[in-house]
């Protein structure tokens, strides 16, 4: 499934609702669905704030793909390319406001990477592998 939104912060809540719902539907347990929603929401918030500089009339799109072994969340925007070396969260012991969004994304996803083939903007692919049942 795919959802297209304008870059309005008020719509982040809807995005989270969709991620949460889809993850639960796919059998992800509740607390983890919540963490996935947070990670995707942080990624989208960064697009709104950094890629689009707070503009509310730009577009972003999230595609959620479920596989037997993983969930993929692909977030697209049509803004200027991100500068990869600028994406860095603050050191945790340097307590100041901000600088935690990408840290949470990395905590809650197993892999976050930009697709170099998406010419029109940025395509961030976030992957979460499913917990395997422990054999016993």
């Amino acid at each position: 499934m795919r959802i297209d939104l304008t870059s309005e912060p008020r719509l982040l809540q809807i995005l989270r609702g969709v991620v949460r719902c889809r993850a639960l539907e796919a059998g992800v347990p509740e607390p983890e669905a919540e963490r996935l929603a947070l990670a995707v929401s942080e990624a989208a918030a960064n697009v709104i704030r950094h890629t689009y500089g707070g503009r509310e009339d730009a577009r972003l799109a999230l595609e959620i793909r479920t596989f037997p072994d993983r969930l993929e969340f692909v977030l697209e925007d049509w803004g200027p390319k991100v500068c990869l070396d600028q994406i860095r969260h603050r050191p945790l012991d340097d307590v100041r406001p901000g600088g935690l969004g990408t840290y949470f994304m990395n905590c809650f996803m197993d892999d976050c990477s930009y697709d170099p083939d998406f010419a029109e903007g940025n395509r961030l692919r976030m992957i979460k592998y499913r917990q395997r049942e422990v054999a016993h």
Partner: protein
Amino acid sequence: MKVQVRNVEDVAIIDCSGDVDLYSSPRLREALLGQIRGGAKSVLVNMGEVGYIDSSGIATLVEGLQLSRTTKTRFGLYSLRSNARSVLELARLHKVFNLFETEQEALEKIGSVQPFGGL
């Protein structure tokens, strides 16, 4: 998100409910910094009804903490739900804030917390 302020003796309590995110955190920020600047001796944020908080919400709380150190205001949070608590722990901020379990505990203890002088 809803934000409301009430006063219990010389403590300003900010009752916050719903999702604290990029969209709503500016309103929490306004209330929080406003109370600290307004000269309240102690400021508490009631997180009991906050089901979701993102990095911008946490940034707002950190900003409140910093300002409270400058103004020597006592500042704390209470009734954190598990989501909010685990996000704070992940960011290693749970020891930076004064955290209380309940409103009662917060009101009893906030007066004896050391207000920091500067950062």
